[in-house]
């Protein structure tokens, strides 16, 4: 309970910042009760081979629909699977949605990839330009906004 309530309120909302005028930090201002390194059990990188790009999209595998889901998953793992089941999301969106550091989300998503519960799209590799047809579609899409 404490972890959840703190995570929900951690972001630097104006209200939270206003109350931090004094020199002491209370409640949400003091940061999450469960520290990020605890969620990753001290790991700073995942077992998966590729570093996950910020805009890599996390897509659930059919196994993730299984109600008898792996009981060894942490609440954060389960939250990631649930968010992505509603709509596949990028690493950056997951980090913002869960209010977790990007590094933590990378480790947790890496675990889920290992367990074959999700897979991750590989964005256009750096130094390679996207296809001209894709660029044309982007322009058309933007013009239609």
């Amino acid at each position, binding site marked *: 309970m404490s972890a959840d309530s703190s995570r929900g309120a951690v972001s*630097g909302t104006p209200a939270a910042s206003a109350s931090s005028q004094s020199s002491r930090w209370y409640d949400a201002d003091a940061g999450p009760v469960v520290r990020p390194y605890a969620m990753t059990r001290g790991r700073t990188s995942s077992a998966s081979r590729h570093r996950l790009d910020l805009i890599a999209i996390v897509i659930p595998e059919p196994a993730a629909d299984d109600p008898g889901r792996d009981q060894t998953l942490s609440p954060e793992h389960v939250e990631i699977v649930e968010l992505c089941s509603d709509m596949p999301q*990028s690493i950056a969106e997951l980090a913002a949605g869960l209010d977790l550091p990007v590094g933590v989300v990378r480790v947790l998503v890496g675990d889920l990839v290992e367990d074959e519960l999700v897979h991750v*799209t590989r964005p256009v590799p750096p130094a390679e330009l996207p296809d001209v047809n894709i660029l044309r579609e982007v322009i058309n899409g933007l013009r239609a906004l």
Partner: protein
Amino acid sequence: MAFGRSSRKRRPVEPVTLKILVAGGFGVGKTTLVGAVSEIRPLRTEERLSEAGRPVDDLEGVEAKTTTTVAMDFGRITLREDLVLYLFGTPGQDRFWFLWDELSQGALGAVVLADTRRLEDCFAAVDYFERRAIPFAVAVNCFEGADRFPVETVQAALDLDPEVPVLLCDARDRPSVRDVLVAVVEHAMARADRLREPATT
């Protein structure tokens, strides 16, 4: 994999994702620009400038600004079900430059947002994208109370290559920001065409 046994739920489409960076000096309106076109509320970590930050962050010309973005700041535009564009506002202060290299990896292009009252603030961003050959456009955010300069003056002041698009824009205005993004992608496409031409395959 896409043809695997279907589950109870419809398999989600796997969108192609692209990103455009939004760079520029501190307080120039990057977050505003992202918010003007994003379909989601810009996701960000904003913190009030602390006492510790004050000697570092030069507020001259942007005295009204009390918060600054210290972490990533991004928005999403779903162009089609299978084509998603992400906008990333780069951290405004020099001391967060280490975040740029990761953000610029695989970026389609960039917007350098400029304020004519503090044009020198965007020199670093222009330099960064030129060195890494990331296509960019310069968008001059037309602040109320700031003098308007012709595009040519800005182009000369920044010593830009003639093909780099320079536009006047209002970062709060969706159509205006859309035009800036179109200019970036068109510029990226023109450059991709030029790079491909010499290939003889």
